[in-house]
């Protein structure tokens, strides 16, 4: 049995994972990264916009915190939001000191630009490829420090003790499948395991997320007892290309791009979706308008609408939007100088995720999470543009420091089932959610193994059995299950949500779970078996889809990215609380914990989110 031992294990090597690894290394820890993609392949690289940080005179962290709280529609936790705003400037300057090629002002200082929902132009950027530069700059620092990277190692199980109360459980490591050799390998972490696995957009059939974004971290954490938080909050972007989900930047509409339906009508005005802002209304408003047009028979091919920028003229297009021409041509086969671009809403970002405190720690000792897979919560019900990248570096760094032993003070955010203030008693689900059998398979064993080495060895054995079963079994191809799951999610848990549709989705998810009982991997090879990897991922997608849908069914209000046909108001009297879902050893249980609106110097009073 191969077992590698390190002080800190970081799972995933995008922005949050890289920053966490560097931070743990700064503390003197022996740190290793275990990642299913080589670090530079991570989806952080696709981020375009920038990094919000209060760097300049006239701006300060309290303004950044206020904007973020308002953008979150008062569902973010003040201590976490304030931590983000306070730490972001130092982290951005740190990136500059590591050589990140930021765009520059005439005086040689880093540039900042205005972004939606911000009261000060504080979005620090590096061209239109800020994420790419952030990712590569931090990977360079990992190389410089000689941090060990196990790349193309797919972590598929956590090594956690099986105490009854998740808050008593301890994480001692994880298990990974070596993609190139087919070996099942144990990783023992004496300090902690940090999950930084990124998004889970593959739950939907149309997303800007990478194919690798399958929610592995959230699904694994959920199944060992860490509650999933605010899972119903999913951000959809209104202008993505229909065949691939590639994002067409808001810049096109910013420059004057117009949205048309199949009748050639400028529907944002024609049908009164946004009589003032028109095409420049907020992401959720434009996304819903587009789908309404399609649903009313005014879409093209019953699928998309047109985004037209031809009237801007060749000169302006080539000058300011040249990259859009390449994107539309390369990924959709359309030349936007001569014809309008087809666009439709696509899943873009998940606000919800693994419940953590502001130090990145979960309720299970030794288990951390940071970045998009985590929910601390910074973004509440809606993320502002430019706030994803600072989250990666701020909370990646904190999780890394903490796991390596630095004292960051007591967290203000309470985690774990003990933080519950209210149970959800009346959720009307058409089918039982949760595991079909082997309810508690993901924690160590019956009889509470507690010796760390034994916990890891047990997990390796359990995972080896699971993989051998999958390889030996000639059953349903996971791709069929995944496709049906994704379609059901896009049809029913998209920008429009209503009770009946959500219940329908839960039924399909249940069917997918049942079919998955018979899943099999037809590629018999031990070498680079992506069939096996995708099959394991699909199980994670099922669990994540279920939590999103349960949360969406429970939350009977309209807040941020979550819209319900039957409930068109934000209801602060009842819903200033986080939706929590505990796996509960296979029988998911919903409960709530309050939002923290008390900040360091003030209490945030909920106001109407208008701009």
């Amino acid at each position, binding site marked *: 049995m191969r077992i590698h031992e390190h002080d800190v294990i970081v799972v995933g090597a995008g922005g949050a994972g890289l920053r966490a690894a560097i931070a743990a290394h700064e503390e003197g820890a022996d740190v290793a990264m275990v990642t299913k993609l080589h670090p530079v392949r991570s989806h952080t690289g696709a981020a375009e916009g920038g990094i919000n940080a209060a760097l300049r005179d006239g701006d300060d962290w309290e303004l950044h915190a206020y904007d973020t709280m308002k953008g979150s529609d008062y569902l973010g936790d003040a201590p976490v939001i304030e931590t983000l705003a306070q730490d972001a400037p130092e982290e951005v*300057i740190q990136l500059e000191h590591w050589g990140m090629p930021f765009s520059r002002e005439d005086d040689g200082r880093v540039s900042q630009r205005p972004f939606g929902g911000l009261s000060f132009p504080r979005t620090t950027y590096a061209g239109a490829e800020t994420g790419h530069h952030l990712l590569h*700059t931090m990977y360079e620092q990992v190389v410089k420090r000689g941090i060990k990277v196990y790349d193309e190692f797919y972590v598929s199980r956590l090594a956690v003790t099986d105490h009854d109360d998740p808050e008593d459980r301890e994480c001692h490591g994880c298990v990974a499948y070596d993609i190139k050799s087919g070996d099942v390998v144990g990783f023992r972490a004496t300090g902690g395991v940090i999950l930084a696995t990124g998004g889970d957009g593959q739950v939907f059939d149309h997303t800007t997320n990478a194919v690798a974004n399958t929610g592995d971290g959230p699904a694994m954490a959920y199944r060992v007892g860490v509650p999933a938080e605010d899972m119903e909050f999913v951000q959809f972007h209104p202008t993505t290309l229909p065949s691939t989900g590639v994002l067409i930047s808001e810049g096109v509409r910013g420059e004057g791009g117009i949205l048309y339906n199949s009748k050639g009508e400028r529907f944002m005005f024609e049908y009164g979706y946004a009589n003032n802002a028109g095409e420049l209304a907020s992401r959720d408003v434009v996304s819903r308008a587009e789908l309404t047009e399609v649903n009313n028979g005014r879409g093209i091919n019953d699928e998309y609408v047109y985004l037209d920028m031809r009237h801007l003229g060749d000169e302006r297009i080539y000058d300011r939007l040249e990259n859009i021409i390449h994107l539309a041509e390369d990924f959709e086969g359309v030349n936007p100088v001569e014809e309008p671009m087809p666009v439709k809403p696509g899943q873009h970002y998940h606000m919800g995720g693994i419940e953590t405190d502001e130090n990145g720690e979960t309720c299970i000792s030794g288990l951390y999470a940071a970045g998009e897979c985590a929910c601390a919560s910074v973004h509440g019900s809606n993320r502002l543009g430019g706030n994803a990248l600072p989250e990666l570096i701020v909370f990646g760094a904190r999780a890394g420091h903490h796991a390596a032993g630095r004292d960051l003070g007591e967290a203000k955010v309470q985690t774990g089932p003990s933080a519950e203030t209210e149970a959800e008693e009346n959720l009307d689900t058409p089918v039982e959610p949760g595991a079909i059998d082997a309810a508690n398979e993901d924690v160590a064993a019956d009889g509470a193994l507690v010796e760390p080495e034994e916990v890891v060895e047990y997990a390796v054995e359990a995972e080896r059995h699971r993989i051998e079963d999958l390889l030996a079994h000639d059953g349903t191809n996971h791709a069929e299950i995944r496709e049906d799951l994704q379609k059901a999610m896009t049809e029913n848990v998209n920008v429009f949500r209503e009770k009946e549709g959500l219940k329908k989705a839960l039924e399909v998810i249940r069917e997918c779970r049942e079919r998955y009982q018979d899943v099999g991997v037809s590629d018999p090879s031990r070498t680079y078996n992506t069939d096996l990897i995708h099959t394991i991922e699909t199980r994670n997608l099922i669990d994540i889809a279920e939590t999103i849908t349960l949360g969406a069914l429970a939350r009977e209000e309209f807040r941020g990215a979550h819209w319900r046909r039957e409930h068109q108001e934000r209801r602060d009297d009842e819903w200033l609380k986080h939706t929590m879902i505990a796996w509960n050893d296979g029988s998911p249980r919903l409960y709530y914990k309050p939002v923290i609106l008390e900040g360091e110097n003030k209490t945030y009073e909920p106001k109407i989110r208008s701009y």
Partner: protein
Amino acid sequence: MSTQIQEQETETETETEQTSEHQTRRLAEKRERADMRERAEADLSDADEIVRLKIFRYDPEVEGKKDPRFDTFEVPFGKGMTVLDALIYARDHFDSSLTFRHSCRQAICGSDALFVNGRQQLGCKTQLSDLEWPVRIEPLPHAEVVKDLVVDMEHFYDQMEAVEPYFQTNELPKGELEEQRQTRENREKVKMSTRCIWCSACMSSCNIAAGDNKYLGPAAINKAYRFAMDEREGEDMKEHRLNIIEQEHGVWRCQTQFSCTVVCPKDIPLTEHIQELKREAVKSNLKFW
């Protein structure tokens, strides 16, 4: 094993071209492709709505795949479909063991550089309508094949690491929250070099790299260029970096065939960067004479 199917680049030595020309050329290429696409679409009758893919298959441990072969897949064609889309379709509908790397689908993760109809390109960024059919898809030449279209990237990563691919300086500003200053011109100077996505298309296309396993290769040299030309590192560090790329298997091995520049999916003027480093190295050596 390696496919070693060498497609000779016909381009021979030319003078260093300018970035603006490069830009113009790319746009001209785009127009040309648009025309070609129009013709292709006009030609499509119903029966042609199927695209045939001839895909390289190999698995070192599976009977019947130990000897490399080509499999043919017939995939329904739709407007906007890329090589990657077709591969995914073939895998998900016909053969789940068909293996290739891919992730972002938008030419930023650099996972899916392939040898398509005899040229290195990203599968996700290549429209089927721009290609001659049937489409022949192979792993990158000059790299060990792991399985099907997956090649071993270790050698490429080793070369990248050999050039100390990280920012180094001894003089950081002392003030709180104070950044290093960099002129816009200098940022512009390194801009194209920072766009590399480590796809290794350049390395695969390079005849010199094919014959000299120790040659740093275009991507690694470009990485060195990115730091050597960054004014924030200072003159001493630039000297140090020039020493690295001037070694026996460094810049002087480049014979300016431009094949790397031609295949780079991010339009980085790689050959130009290598040439500039040669000039810098000469200048720097002259200083000590």
